[in-house]
């Protein structure tokens, strides 16, 4: 009996140092995004489910410590998001915050996390500012950004002769970033930007703005908005005869979730850019089928990207042998990203995860043979072309 006691004590002593590498004895991942507003299908509870799948597939523990996923709704408001983030870090032992749909929110939480010395991995927000002037040593940006969308969708349309653009822009950080990136890219390809109109987030009627875009005579109307805003813009553009009149719509941020929402009838022929399409490889398909079983929907790039980010984070903890922020961030920067989402991904010094993006086209309703199989893959854009050169991103961490 005494022997048994002794050995269990010594076992305990042996086990203790290993556990001590993980703060509070567990790894807690926070998924913070919009779960009730315009972006609830774009990311929402689906991203939470993707994160949980990543944890389960990882085995539920890392370095013998259990992994937990917590989630909250930030309602697209940076102040609410900041409060939740502080509470998570200060009192609820959350080690990292991920997803962060809505650029204004992502910028706020990433900045706050530098002070708290915590890792953020953004998959749902688009602005290049996250890895540009406002980059962070602990901030990572997965899945996509406005630069990749501009190069993908913008580039494709300019190539097809759409050399004059007018923008319909959501009036906040993300819209500006998307408009600016796309405008610059269009100009660099020899096109011109005739003007832009800024609309408030989450309104219902876009016809006034669309009429202004129509009157501009631009060949392409760039929709620098997202989620339900883009859906209604597309529907109403068809209604007012804009597409029938020969002007093309560029849905700059439009994913599988939104295409499913408006249906192939309204969306057919649209070109769009995503860094993931479920029906592209056997590996992506395998994940997508499991995801659909749990959520009832096929994943878009935000959901798949969240899975990839969570997995990479856990791999980095394992490689570092600790969940200490500096060590994990260093591993994330140095390890390649290889999974069904990114085949040969790498993380640039500014925190940008660089992997291929895909130019997609929505099929005509008659060509869709399988539910959710909405896209043809038109082209694969190599990551180095799609994302901004880190040296030109304006991120102070790169110069050093």
């Amino acid at each position, binding site marked *: 009996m005494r022997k048994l006691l002794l050995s269990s004590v010594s076992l305990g002593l042996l086990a203790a140092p290993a556990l001590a590498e993980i703060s509070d004895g567990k790894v807690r991942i926070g998924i913070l995004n919009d779960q009730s507003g*315009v972006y*609830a299908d774009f990311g929402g509870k689906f991203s939470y489910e993707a994160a949980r799948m990543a944890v389960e597939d990882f085995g539920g523990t890392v370095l013998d410590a259990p992994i937990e996923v917590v989630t909250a709704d930030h309602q697209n408001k940076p102040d609410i998001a900041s409060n939740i983030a502080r509470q998570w870090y200060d009192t609820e032992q959350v080690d990292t915050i991920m997803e962060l749909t809505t650029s204004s929110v992502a910028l706020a939480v990433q900045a706050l996390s530098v002070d708290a010395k915590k890792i953020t991995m953004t998959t749902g927000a688009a602005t290049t500012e996250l890895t540009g002037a406002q980059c962070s040593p602990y901030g990572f940006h997965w899945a996509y950004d406005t630069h990749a969308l501009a190069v993908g969708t913008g580039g494709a349309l300019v190539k097809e002769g759409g050399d004059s653009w007018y923008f319909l822009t959501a009036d906040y950080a993300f819209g500006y970033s998307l408009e600016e990136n796309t405008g610059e890219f269009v100009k660099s390809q020899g096109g011109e930007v005739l003007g832009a109109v800024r609309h408030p987030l989450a309104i219902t009627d876009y016809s*006034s703005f669309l009429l*202004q875009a129509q009157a501009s005579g631009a060949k392409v109307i760039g929709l620098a908005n997202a989620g339900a805003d883009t859906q209604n813009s597309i529907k109403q553009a068809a209604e*007012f005869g804009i597409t029938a009149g020969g002007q093309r719509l560029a849905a700059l941020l439009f994913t599988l979730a939104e295409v499913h929402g408006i249906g192939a009838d309204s969306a057919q022929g649209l070109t769009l850019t995503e860094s993931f399409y479920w029906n592209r490889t056997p590996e992506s398909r395998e994940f997508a089928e499991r995801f659909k079983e749990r959520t009832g929907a096929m994943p878009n790039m935000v959901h798949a990207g969240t899975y990839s980010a969570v997995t990479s984070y856990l791999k980095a903890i394992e490689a570092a042998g600790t969940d200490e922020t500096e060590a994990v961030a260093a591993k994330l920067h140095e390890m390649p990203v290889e999974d069904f989402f990114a085949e040969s991904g790498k993380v640039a010094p500014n925190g940008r995860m660089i992997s291929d993006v895909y130019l997609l086209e929505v099929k005509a309703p008659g060509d869709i043979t399988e539910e959710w199989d909405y896209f043809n893959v038109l082209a694969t854009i190599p990551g180095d072309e799609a994302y901004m050169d880190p040296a030109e991103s304006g991120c102070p961490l790169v110069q050093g």
Partner: protein
Amino acid sequence: MIFGVPVQALMGQLLVGLINGSFYALLSLGLAVIFGLLRVINFAHGAQYMLGAFVALLLLTVGGVNYWFALILAPLFVGLFGAIVERTMLSRLYKLDHLYGLLFTFGLALAIEGTFRYFFGASGKPYAAPAQLTGAVNLGFMFLPIYRGWVVIASLIVCFAVWFMIEKTRLGAYLRAATENPVLVQSFGINVPLLLTLTYALGAGLAAFAGVLAAPVYQVSPLMGTNLIIIVFAVVVVGGMGSILGAIVTGYMLGVVEGLTKVFYPEASNIVIFVIMAIVLILRPAGLFGKDA
């Protein structure tokens, strides 16, 4: 050119404003009826509007019932739902402060919208316009979708009918009397609680009617009412709480003002109505058409 904007473009914007005004008018009409006669601030109005659109969608996808029948059936269903809510819950709050009615309907709206978001997701579903009303006419200065023209006409007819019923018919007179002095009206043998239930059902039905009208224009989504309801409240306040004519006229008027703002200063288009509301509250606290100052 007017202020640097071509006249043709301006005409187009005025028309678009009028179309949006039609929705504001229909929705604020229902709110004004409920507030004017029941003194309840119906925060569930946006949810009832959304319910109307979803009932139309479900009738089409599940039952194969077309748009025209949905335009009648959806308001009836939602009206019935309103009647049940009024009878079983809301009527218990009449004796209390108005705040309780507001809180109750607000909670109800959150519960309904949350439930629909759970089952249908935030991006919602499309609803096609009926074949008779698809296409567009070229008016010279703009391309007018036929469906939008129908929205303006339908809304004008319904607004007039409701105004006429309440202000000019015997039933309307009972209703107005019942709110002035329920005890006295009851003593004449008129069933006042029934009248109140019918009024709430009418308001809810009007919201659902607007919802069906909106279904082909906007995405049918659980959030469609949330985005609109605050504006509609502002419309009712500007028009004068409870004034039926005020709600209708102000609805159209603010739709046009908002449309013009979208041309001259688009960034302010979602607050211009509230700026007007603030000005009206300062200068005429009872609203433009309010009776008691």
